[in-house]
């Protein structure tokens, strides 16, 4: 297809997204694909359903033979038992919850801002060395993170941030994955012509980033928010946090999940509760993504 045709079509009249792409679709195909997808989707979601069902099972159903997948007499007792299982903790549960929420939210904001700014520079600026720097970032993604924990610990203790919130935040900010994702998206979704136009209007890089790139790239950084929140929410630092007041929820949850078969119901209840915040973030982000998508593509 030539650019000419594209222009011709563009001139005819603006169309809504839903009006396109009917030409190449058959109804039967759509129904068939939907059924296949739904079946595959049921397979992938099954473990999550299992988690939820098990968390509502009374003790005798947990131990029943033959094992049952679904719950027959749902009960809340596993959830009700949670506070008493946690009351041996030296620090109140709310503190862990606050820590987790605080770290996840501030970490996500810092990471998304830093990574998208860097990605914008890698994608659209004219500075020397941006290509090689981006290659380094990209390849760093492939280095096994376990091996890095010892040098990281040494660095953190040298600059004196061991056992503070900063050991959670520092490594979260430069996550190479986020920068890579944003760079790829900005490459596709921001036409160079738009950059030219903004430059001619006298906008500096800072303004282009904040007022042009970020709004256009909203679907991408919403997606990144999702990934980043999920990762931070489940962070378990390796040997860099000692104070009980600074620990996060996942570290506390292991206390419950290590409790053996009698506690497996409560362990599932805890797992389900842990799942909720990422799911909420998913739906917030996803609804935003879908709303902005159709308008963002190409201006």
């Amino acid at each position, binding site marked *: *297809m030539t650019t000419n045709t594209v222009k011709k079509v563009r001139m005819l009249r603006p169309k809504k997204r839903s009006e396109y792409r009917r030409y190449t679709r058959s109804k039967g195909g759509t129904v068939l694909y939907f059924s296949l997808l739904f079946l595959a989707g049921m397979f992938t979601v099954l473990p999550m359903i*299992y988690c939820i069902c098990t968390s509502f099972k009374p003790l005798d159903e947990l131990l029943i033979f033959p094992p049952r997948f679904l719950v027959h007499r749902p009960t809340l007792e596993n959830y009700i038992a949670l506070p008493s299982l946690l009351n041996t903790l030296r620090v109140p549960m709310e503190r862990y919850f606050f820590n987790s929420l605080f770290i996840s939210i501030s970490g996500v904001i810092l990471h998304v801002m830093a990574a998208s700014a860097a990605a914008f520079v890698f994608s659209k600026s004219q500075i020397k060395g941006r290509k090689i720097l981006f290659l380094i970032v990209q390849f760093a993604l492939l280095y096994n993170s376990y091996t890095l924990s010892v040098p990281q610990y040494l660095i953190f203790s040298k600059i004196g941030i061991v056992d503070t919130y900063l050991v959670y935040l520092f490594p979260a900010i430069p996550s190479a994955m986020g920068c890579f994702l944003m760079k790829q998206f900005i490459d596709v979704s921001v036409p160079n012509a738009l950059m030219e136009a903004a430059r*001619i209007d006298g906008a500096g890089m800072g303004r282009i980033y*904040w007022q042009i790139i970020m709004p256009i790239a909203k679907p991408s950084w919403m997606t990144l928010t999702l990934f980043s929140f999920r990762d931070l929410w489940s962070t378990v630092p390796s040997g860099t946090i000692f104070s009980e007041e600074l620990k996060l929820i996942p570290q506390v949850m292991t206390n419950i999940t290590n409790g053996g078969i009698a506690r497996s119901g409560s362990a599932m209840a805890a*797992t389900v509760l842990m799942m909720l915040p990422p799911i909420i973030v998913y739906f917030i982000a996803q609804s935003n993504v*879908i709303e902005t998508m159709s308008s963002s593509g190409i201006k």
Partner: protein
Amino acid sequence: MKTKTIPTSKSKLSGAGENTASWLLLAPFMSFFILCTLIPVGSSVVLSFFDYDMVSTPIFTGIQNYMRMFTDDSVFFTVLGNTLRFAVITGPLSFLLSFLLAWLINEFPHTVRSILSFLFYAPALVGNAYYIWQVAFSGDSFGYVNNLLISLGFITEPIQWLKDVAYNSTIIMVVQLWMSMGVSFLANISGLQNVNTELYEAGAIDGVRSRWHELWYITLPSMKSILLFSAVMQIQSVFSISVVVTTLAGYPSVNNSVDTLVPLIQDVGTARYEMGYAAALSVFLFFMMAFFRIVVGKALDLMGKQD
């Protein structure tokens, strides 16, 4: 956080001002990147030439750690083979599936799309819940799979799924596939939304008649950079398979049948305190992944040129 940088009111091609602003925008990310990633990677590479037990002073041993890998480690080749086998089978499969699913889902109206996306992203949301698979494939008759097969009359004795060399690697690959699609899948979904819809219209006028034609001539070329991202993420996750394997099959597994490189590195580092050797193994793993990354990059480049 970021301050809004000085708007350069100068002129169109404000070379110097723009460069300064660019560096300023890059600075927060790069400075933390150097501190938390680059320096640790560098020191890990240096450490791979030393003998270091985390207590005494490191002793320089040249390439001895690398020699040891190939000549003096009884499990290295088995582990390497397992890693490659998992990577070569699940990597491409997961890459293709996550694109195909995203592409098919993208066809549907808003609500259907949200629901289907949620179903496929769910494994990533259940977090560390892959131990559920352990329940499913548990070796006694309490395991769901055994129970089902027994009640259907396919087997009479429970099978030790995760201990049996005949089954465990297949099971691990299925679980890995189940887990690894999340990130690529969602990236693909939002990438597909970014494809210029006018191209589809133009394509239809120019004679693209089926959705598969459209996929090949319009969608794929427009998706190249997201596909590269997705491929790199697959390489990263598939070569680093560790928790799935250690949770399901334990470490070391029966006859090392499913042990992979990352658990080996962790074992060498954490249990045996041989940080130098662990670092050398990591460097080796890195070069292997980098090789595949370069091959994949070249392959995706070709895709564009044919068009």
